[in-house]
């Protein structure tokens, strides 16, 4: 447990009044974007911007959640999301406790619910959970009294990732309404895709899912999402491309013949940038496979907002923690 009590930090009253939690916000947990309304999503985005500014663009701390404890409970490898949540908690003055374990609970002999209850018994106020099995945050929310934040449950949802992607787009384009956003790659196994789809649709964007037919289900059309198997065909219409990582580890039978063929069809390279709208935004949730989903020139090029996404991640997570824990503070 880390507690940097040496720093005397206070929150200016002006910021506190800006961050008043509206009565309409009644969520204890953040499990996904599917069940949030557009105004709730906008509230998180707005507060993320306020908190980002209030921490001097992330370089100072507030005491909004002083005395509160956030536990990171990661049952799957993660560095960026875990660190992002930790930093977000610390910038709001909360203490953090880290718990990592890989593999399923069957292998360990303790159910993950018991593990979570053990952590909760250390008097934490929120549990940030990542797990390879969909629904684990929902199960925890039924068994724990504290707040539960989904940091990725298998291919189901990764709400803070969806929110930070949307925030990044909003910062560049002002509004999501009317924009065409394509999610490219492994849609089937991507929690980022699902959270993006819910959030983008609610905020009025047009969503295209694009990738090999083995990874892009036709059923998405029932939600009003366009399904495409050809990046080249949709490219001229897109305002934003979100290039999802191919999750080799989740697939029993390879859904495409080779990485070489995948890059031929779906990798974003300079040549494809040339055929895109001039102001196209290139996003990737990371970790990126350079040379697979996108070439280094594109990743590091002028259209790429990949590192802004990372910065926005902390802002979104601060806003999430504040909205879930702030009322009690």
């Amino acid at each position, binding site marked *: 447990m880390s507690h940097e009590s040496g720093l005397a930090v206070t929150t200016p009253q002006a910021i506190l009044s800006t961050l008043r939690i509206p009565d309409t916000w009644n969520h204890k947990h953040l499990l996904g974007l599917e069940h949030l309304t557009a105004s709730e999503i906008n509230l998180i985005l707005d507060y993320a911007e306020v908190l980002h500014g209030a921490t001097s663009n992330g370089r100072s701390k507030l005491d909004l959640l002083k005395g509160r404890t956030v536990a990171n409970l990661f049952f799957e490898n993660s560095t960026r999301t875990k660190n992002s949540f930790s930093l977000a908690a610390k910038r709001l003055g909360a203490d953090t406790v880290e718990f990592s374990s890989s593999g399923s*609970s069957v292998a360990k002999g303790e*159910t993950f619910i018991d593990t979570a209850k053990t952590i909760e018994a250390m008097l934490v106020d929120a549990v940030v959970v990542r797990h*390879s099995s*969909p*629904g*684990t945050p929902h199960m925890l929310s039924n068994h724990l009294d504290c707040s539960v934040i989904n940091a990725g449950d298998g291919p189901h949802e990764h709400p803070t990732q969806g929110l930070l992607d949307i925030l990044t787009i909003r910062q560049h384009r002002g509004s999501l309404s009317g924009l065409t956003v394509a999610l490219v790659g492994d849609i089937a196994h991507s929690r980022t895709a*699902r959270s993006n789809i819910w959030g983008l649709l609610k905020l009025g964007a047009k969503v295209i899912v694009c990738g090999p037919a083995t990874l892009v289900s036709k059923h998405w059309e029932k939600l009003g999402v366009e399904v495409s198997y050809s990046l080249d065909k949709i490219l001229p219409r897109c305002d934003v491309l979100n290039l999802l990582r191919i999750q080799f580890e989740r697939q029993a039978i390879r859904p495409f013949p080779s990485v070489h063929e995948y890059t031929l069809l779906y990798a974003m390279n300079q040549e494809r940038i040339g055929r895109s709208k001039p102001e196209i935004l290139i996003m990737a949730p990371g970790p990126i496979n350079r040379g697979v989903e996108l070439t280094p020139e594109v990743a590091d090029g002028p259209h790429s907002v990949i590192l802004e996404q990372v910065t926005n991640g902390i802002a979104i997570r601060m806003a999430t923690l504040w909205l879930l824990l702030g009322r009690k503070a």
Partner: protein
Amino acid sequence: MYADSSWLIENARLIDPSSGMDRIGRLLVMNGRFAGMDTPDGDVPEHIQRIDAAGCIVAPGLIDLATEFGEPGREEDETIVTGTTAALAGGYTAIALSSNSEPPIDTAASVEFIRQKGARADNCKVYALGCVSKGQLGESLAEIGSLVEAGAVALSDGPRPIENTALLRRALEYCGMFDRVVFDHPEIASLSRGGVMHEGLEQLKLGLSPIPAEAEDLATSRDLRLIEATGGRLHLTSISTSGSVELCRRAKARGIQFTSGIFIANVHMCDTMMRSFDANCKVNPPLRSQDHIDACVEGLRDGTIDIISSGHRPSSLEKKMLEIDAAPFGMIALETAMAQVVTYLIRPGILTWCEALEKMSLNPAKLLGKSGGTLEIGKAADFFIIDPERRWLVDATALQSKSYNTPLNGSELFGLVLSTFVAGRRRWTAKV
């Protein structure tokens, strides 16, 4: 005369699927057998026990072809004693116990074990199903002749599909010699492996691994073709897709002899229930989408589906507390199946009582070649009394089953089994 196996049940609605009878009357049971219908007072023994069953239905005891307990090997899920008590509470007077135990029932000795344990429990009748393949491994035939000799009523690899087509063909040919039915759970595992729920929009939203409908359709199609080729006897234990129903309908129209069954969950529980991520909704066949449910209900109505089974598959609490990917398949259903049929098939007018009892009692008895499914005079008095209008709340912890894994916990159902009689002996009385 055995006083405890003679009864006069009065004012009951007597329903007998074997004769099509459905009327109010009185039923005389003497010495464990049905002895008379509307017997005049003068012919009724003076001190016989009388039951006034006004407003209730008296029907032949239910017979289940898809019950799993776990004993031997998984007594933490269900023992033969707790499971057969649950069966009685649900109106079942006989169950054919799945071979899916640890070890699986693939030797004469293990068949003997099941039969003796069943007899000792002295609840409902317990018939043993023997394995089709040694160790349920799907590689080579179990010693089917010995299993039958020891009393196996039919052959089944339990919830495991007989994946190897050549083995299934051999099994159909070989079991024919003993006039025994082969049970197959139709599923092409290479299409469904790792799957957790029905493939479709709901599954896509939840990000759970898919079990596609065609994994079942293809197996059903294959099985039907093999029945035709071998003339073997086959029971499809658990169809759940519109494709399977249509394949069975066409096969029956062409005169192919087989039976098809459905688990009660697949009659009314929709894949949208998986939104709760409740591991109790993780079953195999998976809860399907509404279009498949509608097709199955139509298959029940038009007679394409012959048998409704409980699909009772208990799992101890700690197993179902696991992540949904890791949790085992199955839900308990022996104590709710009849009420589910009342609530979702009989009350909405899809099946008559007589048709429902045909699928839950008479047809299973015929398939096994056992007595049952009838109120005929002279036959063993296996029957139950149910109040069809009585509403009750499912409380999983109050059920007789050792496990609690039912997503119906907290739901209200119609139709409460009041008493169950096996060979005339009242073996179950509900606390009401």
